[in-house]
């Protein structure tokens, strides 16, 4: 950020609270690794030292949705799995974002059949669609940067009155 040069002069700087909060949010996007099939392998590769998702502050993959900001849906979502994905998404605290990683999550991909949901946007609000089968880790990082840009444009007041979602308490067997 080049803040050090500012601090050398006066010891303080002025900014907007919105900008500061957005900067803090976008620099520490904690992903929920919703690794359902083969895209998950590329998602894991994005975490290794070669691609190093830590450069963007997103190395903390949390396996509990309560601590996550970003859901990376990596893999084919079947109709049977869809309620589970939605339930995990509902448990994430606001504000939250979703990456539809790979052709299957974006459109059903090669699985044009009765059992696969033809695009997760039928039951989830998606912020970023990611092409590829599977996408390379670079591509996932690109999506992450796009999400960061999106978070950088948000204002804190937007989320003030965000209502918690109504959880569906009955479970389908």
């Amino acid at each position: 950020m080049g803040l050090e040069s500012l601090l050398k002069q006066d010891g303080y700087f002025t900014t907007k609270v919105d900008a500061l909060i957005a900067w803090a949010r976008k620099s520490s996007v904690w992903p929920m690794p919703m690794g359902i099939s083969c895209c998950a392998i590329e998602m894991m590769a994005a975490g290794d030292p070669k691609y190093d998702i830590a450069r963007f502050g997103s190395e903390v993959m949390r396996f509990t949705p309560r601590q996550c900001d970003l859901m990376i849906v990596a893999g084919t979502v079947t109709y049977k799995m869809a309620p589970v994905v939605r339930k995990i998404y509902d448990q994430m605290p606001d504000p939250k974002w979703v990456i539809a990683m790979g052709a299957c999550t974006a459109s059903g991909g090669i699985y044009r059949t009765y059992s696969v949901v033809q695009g997760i946007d039928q039951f989830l609000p998606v912020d970023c669609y990611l092409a590829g089968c599977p996408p390379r880790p670079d591509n996932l990082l690109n999506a992450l940067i796009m999400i960061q840009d999106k978070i950088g444009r948000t204002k804190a007041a937007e989320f003030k009155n965000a209502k918690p979602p109504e959880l569906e308490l009955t479970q389908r067997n």
Partner: protein
Amino acid sequence: MDLKEHVVQKLKEHFPGTNFETTDYRDELTIKFPKEVVVDVCSFLKFDPDLEFSFCEDVTAIDWAKRKDRFTIVYQIYSFKNNFRLRLKADVDESDCKIDSVTSVWKTANWQEREVYDMYGISFNNHPDLRRMYMPEDFEYHPLRKDFPLMGIPGSIPLPKK
């Protein structure tokens, strides 16, 4: 004596009144029989000391769509003792869409028969746990039947609300 002839001959000796159709294609022996004797034939093949077909590799079905006996159940079995594979077939008609379960002979048939039940809607008598394998419990159709559309029936599986 050739093992194939041996298997067929033993079956014919042991089940005199039963009609066995045998085909030998690409060195693979297939034996077809009426569905009523399936458990007897299978337990004979498994427990006969010469044959010992102790491993049931797969149970699956074929949907012939417009044929009179619409379905054929296929059992792929293997004998470790003789290193020999055998295919068994039995026809099932849609009007009486059930067959006896062979789980009492091979435990591995349990999930395979559940899969056939899920995908083709053929029910198995005396099966210990006949539930759907892949599709949701309340799903009404059987996807591998020829009259099921590839993209499914819209609205048959509910999605969560957006």
